[in-house]
């Protein structure tokens, strides 16, 4: 009887250990997203947000980030929704719905929209380069490289002069696209890794170097560029339009 109980003890210990492992991998990302989507559809936004958060603790899913933003919006938490859309756009800058919802939330929160200033061409180029992820540019570069190579090979095989000329033009264009894509991928990757943006979560004042309050405080949901952090839980910030620059409480900011 005693032996049986000891065996039972070890079996229980084994079961406890394995169930702990099993608990960690309880739901697959697909199952979590499906559960969250279902909760959202049933207007249970709190459960939906919880499932999306659980999924995002395991890794990155841009659609889950976008959907989480929607869940926070439905819960009237605009700053959190803005954080989610900003994060979704960080991973997928060409996500049109995330960009739209971000603009809508900013409009509803009464915070400034992000506007690039400068010459038209510079603005267009910046939007084009940073409007796509490094991976998207990387794929473009690969395709351009393949086209350039194929055009080179064909131009040596074909005998018709006009076709050979056409292929040379195609090859030159592909080489240009290849170089532009490689540079853009590197720039987009740098922008991704050197992410110094945060969203203001609470109304908070901005102070200058001497600790004096600046007349324009920050609004919840406002996106700012962050700089260094001081020991007094203060972070250097600059608003997106660059008009306000100073120090603010770190705990009122949530990094993107």
């Amino acid at each position: 009887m005693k032996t049986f109980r000891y065996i039972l003890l070890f079996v229980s210990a084994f079961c406890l250990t394995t169930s702990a492992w099993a608990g960690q991998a309880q739901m697959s990302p697909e199952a979590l997203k499906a559960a969250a989507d279902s909760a959202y559809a049933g207007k249970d936004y709190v459960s939906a947000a919880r499932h999306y958060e659980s999924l995002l603790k395991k890794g990155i899913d841009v659609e889950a980030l976008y959907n989480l933003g929607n869940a926070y919006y439905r819960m009237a938490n605009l700053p959190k929704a803005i954080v989610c859309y900003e994060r979704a756009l960080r991973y997928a800058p060409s996500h049109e719905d995330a960009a739209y919802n971000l603009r809508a939330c900013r409009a509803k929160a009464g915070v400034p929209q992000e506007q690039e200033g400068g010459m038209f061409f510079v603005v267009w180029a910046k939007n084009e380069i940073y409007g796509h992820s490094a991976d998207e540019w990387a794929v473009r570069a690969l395709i351009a490289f393949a086209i350039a190579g194929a055009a080179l090979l064909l131009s040596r095989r074909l005998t018709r002069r006009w076709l050979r000329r056409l292929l040379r033009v195609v090859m030159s264009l592909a080489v240009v696209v290849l170089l532009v894509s490689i540079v853009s991928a590197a720039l987009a990757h740098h922008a991704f890794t050197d992410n110094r943006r945060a969203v203001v979560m609470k109304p908070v004042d901005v102070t200058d170097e001497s600790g004096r309050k600046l007349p324009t405080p920050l609004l919840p949901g406002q996106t700012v560029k962050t700089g260094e952090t001081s020991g007094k839980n203060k972070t250097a910030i600059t608003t997106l339009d660059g008009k306000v620059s100073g120090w603010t409480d770190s705990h009122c900011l949530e990094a993107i």
Partner: protein
Amino acid sequence: MLCLPLVAQLQLEVTAPQSVDINEPYFQIKYTVRSAETADFRPPTIQGFNILSGPNTSVSRSFSSVNGRTKSEGQTVYTYTLEPTTKGTFHISAAAVVVGGKTLHAKALTIKVDGQGSRKPEAGQAAPSSPNNQPPLRRAGTAVTTSDLSLTGHLSPKKVYEQQAAVLTYEFLEKPGVGLSQVGLNQKPDFKDIVSQEVPVGQINATTTRVGQTLYRTGVIGRYLLYPQKSGKLTIPSITFNCTVVQRDAILDPLDAFFNGGGTMGVNVNRQTQPLELEVMPLPSPRPQGFSGGVGEMHIDGKLIYSDQATGEMMTYRITISGVGNLRLLSAPSIAFPTDFETYTPKVTDNTEVTLEGVKGQMVFDYTFVPRNVGHYEIPAISFVYFDPVVGEYKTLTLPAKSLDIHQGTLSEDELEAIRRMREGDIRPIHTDKSHFTPSDGHRLWNTVGYWLAYVVIVGILLLLKQATKGYAHLKGSVSGHLNKASKVALRRLKSAKKLLKTADERSYYSALAAVVSDYLCRQCGLQENSGSTQQTINQLREKDLPETLINEAADILQQCDMAGFAAQSEATPEKLYEQAVNLISHFESAYKQSRQSTTKQPQS
């Protein structure tokens, strides 16, 4: 094999302080014997002390296995919790216990009680309870009476104004050793006509207190801030707490301890508090016009937030009400913005915390508005009226009027309209397509080894393609320019004929080569289909208006093919003949193009 310690080696040891301060709430005497099999404990005679608890028996067993030999050790502890009552030196007689039929005696004790002052007999004296000085738990099955454990509630203050905060505190009172471990509410208290907010208590911090002659442990188990919503006598109903007390299971197998929780067991006990009465005074009448409903000590601040005073620019008027009082119950003050301002529902941010003084902090009201037209505008002054219960009168705070000089903004009417639509419209729906989950945080493709390898793979594929089309290029390279259909067919057939060198004998190759050349000449020069006679073909060629060199070249190839086919030994190698055939096609092609060019130029001239 179980080895029990020899009874002869056993002793009944006693631990107790030699002296005790008169102001100590209690101290303990412990009799310990290294055996779990004890019987007939004979208690000592205790005089000069108040026995708060005891003798409480605690039995423990431990098993260890070394080199296959199992060893069992047990211990029994008898504990007295005593309270010093008067100064002096007191003797405690020897206690005894029977183990294995032998009576073990402990030493007699002498304890001196000294210290300054005398014992305070009044109730309410409290001293911190040390976790190391916990009295032993009671045995399982011991009844928990209301004198052992009770819960009380009290209000502070008992008389308040309407909307003024009163603190409702629930405390427990237990005798040492009862072992209260957990207190929970069966259901949330229903405070009628009262808005309540729970004040977080955190971990229960128990202290000792004396009620009459009895010492108790006490601590706060719950606190609520109550904001009465109407005047009169309001009743706080009695509520039932579900308490768990821990009792020691005296005889417990280690395996039972593992499965059932370590030698102790929880016992559930319900305790009900007495109903309380809160006297609520009405706010003085008449209430001033514009009274906000705020009761407490409050301050107001107003600030305009904008990046530019321009049309289409979103601006915020932030009103901050700070202080202590019913801040969370305040509604946003109404502001009469100019009529041609586009205004939105104010956004409220709660920066308060619930403290024992009341709700403390600030409520931030953000009024968002967008000026549409250029001009000078004024946001009127705002009066905030609240009631101060300390002085018992209404107070008015005023924010001065704010001026705005709006100039023309940079946003076009279309852009403003787009933003307006966004503000009023809904967001785009969620994406329910399949999860694109990646466990890594970053880019999946760019700058990875796989990515750069993809370039190498593309280069490899292109090189393979180049190699695969090399033969075709060689053929085409021999015949410059665009080929007509007859030449293309001939070149393809030549290539097929060459393969015969590997698969069949040379004769087949030569006859195939001759057939290809002969057919080519027929198609290219419009010769009549013949039976394959070389001489006939040559004769037909000579009838055409062709350069002599070309005719000779064709005749040479055909004749060599005939020779090689019959003799099997020929001067010309198969490769050389192949080259000659390709060259022949090339030369015919050139001659054909030249003749075409000359015929197209003639009409122009």
